[in-house]
């Protein structure tokens, strides 16, 4: 167990703590309980998507379509609840749609052998177009009161969306660590050739990873709809894929696949969430917000890579 969660994530955890500390000193409001809750709530959507993205990146791929899937599913769920469909049924249908989108990605990638990034770049355009079409170009809003539970409700005293994120993260940590499916993801990402030679079900694994990614985006979409309260299909979650990819990579994953953990990704997401919240809480000029955010992303990645870079030059202590 200790080895699975090796110290791989140490730099990012450390940096998250440092940033946390800096914002604490910069603003007395930062460490308020309500603000910490706000941060947790704000990262649920990217966090849930990041779980799927971690798996995709572990395979050496990238899913650029997550934002479009989110827009599509959020629109559909919103329309359904507004049409009087039971909220949970609507969410279920939304997840089915998300799974379908994921399955389409997975199908195209595995059957036609088109590289992941290109496929999801294409479906990103397509799903977004469909989403706007389905919405009729108007705001989907004015949801019934009970729908607020998904994004704002509490269960056992804990914010419901945060709970969802927690359960999903734990579930997938388990899947990645303790099922053959999970280890195959690492294996395929680590060495495709070897995976092929050991007769591994590569296509099936890949297909399911994209399917899960679609489903997770759908879960995020339902929370998004409830949380934000109004959906504009053309802009909902427009640039979320880059944010999530950045977070996963900051969390220690390698873009070439094979390396990375969900724990790391969650810290990446948390770090970005803290930064986004912190720069506003600390009352920086609005014009500086992006500049500081970008700078901190770069610092995070520098810290992540520092050890590797030093290692590559240093003599190793152990003779082999």
């Amino acid at each position, binding site marked *: 167990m200790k080895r699975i969660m090796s110290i791989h994530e140490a730099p990012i955890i450390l940096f998250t703590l440092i940033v946390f500390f800096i914002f604490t000193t910069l603003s007395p409001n930062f460490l308020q309980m309500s603000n910490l809750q706000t941060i947790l709530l704000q990262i649920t959507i990217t966090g849930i998507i990041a779980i799927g993205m971690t798996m995709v990146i572990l395979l050496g791929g990238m899913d650029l379509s997550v934002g479009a899937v989110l827009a599509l599913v959020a629109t559909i769920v919103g329309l359904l609840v507004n049409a009087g469909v039971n909220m949970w049924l609507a969410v279920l249908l939304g997840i089915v749609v998300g799974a379908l989108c994921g399955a389409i990605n997975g199908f*195209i*990638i595995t059957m*036609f*052998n*088109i*590289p*992941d*990034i*290109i*496929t999801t*770049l*294409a*479906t*990103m*355009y*397509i799903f*977004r*177009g*469909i989403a*706007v*079409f389905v919405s009729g170009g108007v705001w989907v809003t004015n949801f019934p009161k009970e729908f607020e539970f998904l994004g704002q409700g509490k269960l056992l005293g804990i914010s419901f969306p945060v709970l969802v994120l927690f359960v999903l993260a734990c579930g997938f940590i388990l899947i990645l660590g303790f099922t053959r499916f999970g280890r195959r993801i690492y294996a395929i990402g680590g060495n495709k050739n070897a995976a092929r030679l050991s007769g591994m079900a590569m296509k099936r694994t890949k297909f399911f990873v994209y399917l899960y990614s679609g489903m997770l985006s759908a879960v995020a979409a339902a929370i998004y709809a409830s949380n934000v309260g109004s959906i504009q299909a*053309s802009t909902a979650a427009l640039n979320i894929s*880059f944010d999530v*990819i*950045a977070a996963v*990579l*900051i969390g220690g994953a*390698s*873009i*070439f696949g094979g390396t990375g953990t969900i724990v790391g990704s969650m810290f990446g997401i948390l770090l970005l969430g803290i930064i986004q919240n912190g720069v506003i809480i600390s009352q920086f*000029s*609005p*014009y*500086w*917000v*992006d*500049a*500081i*955010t*970008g*700078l901190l*992303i*770069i610092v*995070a*990645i*520098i810290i*992540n*890579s*520092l050890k*590797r*870079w030093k290692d*590559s030059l240093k003599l190793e202590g152990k003779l082999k």
Partner: protein
Amino acid sequence: MITIMKKTIHPFVNNQIVILLLLLVGLSLFFRLQSPYFLTQGNIFNILSQIVEIGLIAIPMTYVIISGNMDLSVGSIMGLAAVALGMFHTMAGLDIWLSVILALIVGILCGALNGLLIAKFKMQAIVVTIGTMVMLRGFIYVLTEGRPISGYPPEFYFLGQGQLGGLPFNTIVLVIAFVLAYYLIRQTRFGRYTYALGNNEEAVHFSGINEVRTRFIILVCNGFFAALAGVFLVSRLATAEATTGSGIELSVITAVLIGGTHIFGGRGSLVGTMIGVVIIGVLNNGLNLMGVSSLFQMVILGLFILIAVSRQKS
């Protein structure tokens, strides 16, 4: 004849290029049937000057991707250079051509920052450039507070709007840049290193080659070309705004990928990239002429990407 052609073209790309050309011709025929305006000289010039900025950035981006990297910050570099140009000229009151040079230097410096982090310190290109993308865009807002900068001397508009020998000047620059880049990648050791780096960086290092420098140069070029595109855009639009170039990285990468360059490097061709750029230009223009809503254009572009690259094995 054909066999000779096949032999001279790089073995990885010949099929892909032929298919792309066929797609382009098919697309053009289709639009010609749909709109009488499509194949007019005016429209062709129109398309050509529209693709200049994407085309300029796509050239070094092809190198970047072939060498196994990625640069998402080009849009922000382009914007920063555009805004810097405006500020040097209108606020600092510098001569316009001096401002252009300084703007290009800004682009080079941004490229150098990417290069330092990616080539020298071996950080993952995607995250680094997402970081610089956000940060440089932030600098633009810090500098301009979001306000567009306009008011340039008339001679400056020649770059983006003028003609030379009956051809749009910016298109001529694009063609020259393309030919040079093509020569560089096919005929020089720099080009050879670019491909080798994308396939096996370690083997390049073990061959006693300064792989850091080659990578660095490529990323600096990318910054330079992004800035150049920014300058041309300012000249074409007569204004530099804070959102200049945002989102262009996706169009550029789409064009490069349609052109058959392999996303993980090692394989690709500049000819393919150029055809990819033209295809995107033609597709946009043709669909606009047909009055197709850009929503459906988005869907069509998506489908088109799938068709164009369906032969590229992952």
